[in-house]
């Protein structure tokens, strides 16, 4: 299946899920991500791979179906957009507490509340710093193209099982709705029940044989000391993610005087800003975040030694900028720019902000 296709980001996620050998998808429609479940319903993956697709009665039901199915060691996915992902937060916290692998796709729209159906990046805090209750982290990947919408599905599942942790693909209305050229990967077979027992039998509820103790999946521990121990274990896992799973793309940063930090659609827009700025003689680079948690703080801190300033560009009132400032740690100025509430900034607007806030300042 190396054929080049024209697909929407949302369709790419759906097709990539089938190709990644996903066992089940549970979702509920919401703009701007409804094409995910629409595509899956039309494509009938149960005929192709046996993958289950189910429209739940609500987002809360969908995430709890994910919770249950993930407990059996299956590859399970859900997707939604901001208000729907807010509804899923209780389930996500339980899944993180129970240390189960799953993939959650958020095609972000403007908030707060029901907000707007237009693109936004204002769910950064929710995705990277909790969202649900308790000390937990999601691994968060931010695709910036339709190709990455597809590529990150399999990657997300690999990471989810590597760490037994929920992984979020944090997209937005631009990447979800736009169509681009895409090359799809080959079909991965779904794991058989025997393969699941062999790989995940030490934790998954696959049916208790006489040869081992029963596997219990729970996020409840009434003894606070044991719960603290469990939290220590989780924290050690998140630290390992920070050591091993940082992903980013540095474009023209080697000789840069000024660097734009951005992810997702803002990174695409800022790449054009970088071209416009370079045409005007400003040495501008783009530091594109691919993993939002773990955040590439060491790399940004190092970059602060050679550049004069950073502009954090995101479609929010200023969320990622907090992590940029923590990383840069006062070495160099780091300012924020972004339209929000569903308004998408243009490359020219970002250039004006760059000139006023960083280059001129």
């Amino acid at each position: 299946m190396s054929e080049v296709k024209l697909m929407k980001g949302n369709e790419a996620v759906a097709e990539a899920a089938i190709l990644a050998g996903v066992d089940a998808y549970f979702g509920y429609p919401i703009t701007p991500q409804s094409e995910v479940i629409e595509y899956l319903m039309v494509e009938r993956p149960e005929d192709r791979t046996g993958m289950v697709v189910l429209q739940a009665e609500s987002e809360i039901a969908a995430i709890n179906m994910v919770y249950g199915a993930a407990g059996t060691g299956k590859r399970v996915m859900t997707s939604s957009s901001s208000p729907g992902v807010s509804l899923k937060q209780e389930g996500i916290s339980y899944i993180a507490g129970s240390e189960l692998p799953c993939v959650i796709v958020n095609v972000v729209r403007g908030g707060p509340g029901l907000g707007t159906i237009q693109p936004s990046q204002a769910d950064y805090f929710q995705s990277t710093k909790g969202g649900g209750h308790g000390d937990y982290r999601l691994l968060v990947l931010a695709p910036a193209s339709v190709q990455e919408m597809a590529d990150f599905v399999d990657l997300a599942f690999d990471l989810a099982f590597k760490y037994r942790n929920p992984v979020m693909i944090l997209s937005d209305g631009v990447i979800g709705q736009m169509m681009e050229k895409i090359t799809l990967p080959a079909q991965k077979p779904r794991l058989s029940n025997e393969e699941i027992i062999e790989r995940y039998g030490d934790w998954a509820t696959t049916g208790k044989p006489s040869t081992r103790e029963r596997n219990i999946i729970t996020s409840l521990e009434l003894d606070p000391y044991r719960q603290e121990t469990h939290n220590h274990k989780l924290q050690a896992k998140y630290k390992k993610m920070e050591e091993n799973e940082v992903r980013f793309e540095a474009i023209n940063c080697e000789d840069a005087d000024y660097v734009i930090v951005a992810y997702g659609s803002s990174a695409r827009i800022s790449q054009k800003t970088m071209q416009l700025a370079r045409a005007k003689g400003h040495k501008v680079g783009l530091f594109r975040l691919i993993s939002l948690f773990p955040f590439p703080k060491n790399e940004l801190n190092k970059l602060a030694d050679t550049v004069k300033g950073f502009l954090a560009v995101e479609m929010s009132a200023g969320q990622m900028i907090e992590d940029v400032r923590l990383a840069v740690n006062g070495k160099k100025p780091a300012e924020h720019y972004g339209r929000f509430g569903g308004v998408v900034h243009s490359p020219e607007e970002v250039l004006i902000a760059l000139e006023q806030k960083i280059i001129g300042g």
Partner: protein
Amino acid sequence: MTEEMIIAGFGGQGVLSMGKILAYSGIMQDQEVSWMPSYGPEMRGGTANVTVIVSDERISSPILTHYDTAILLNQQSMDKFEKSVKPGGVLLYDPNGILHHPTRTDIKIYTIEGAKLASQMGNPNIFNMIVFGAFLKIKPIVKLENVIRGLKKSLPERHHKLIPLNEDAISMGMNNVVEK
């Protein structure tokens, strides 16, 4: 070569499909493409628009504010996007239903009587392909053979019998575009 364009009009005119066919044609000749629709409460009778970029190079921003070409198919779109055409760029429109015609003198302005020609051909559904033909006459950025290949690829098999009709519509547009 990079062509940055906007196609805007009423929902139901085939604005998004025209953009999709252009994007598919670009893929057929190994170019990079992006297609970014407006996706608000657009439906039949509402406004709809799509930004299409066809380029020999990797495309950065799919979001633009200025365009090499604007294809504007209703008054609201004319009011909104006439000013967004780059100096020296192209504005193509169907005068049907346009009360306030474009006034800029630093761009090239073309008209195509798409609605009238479609009704003469007895099929209002091919309106968008007539307009698309007019665009290809002004800017032959994709080869006609690649448009046909793109159509074959994007249309389900049961609709392939409509491809000759679409070819006729494209020729009709090519032969009837007028420079103002």
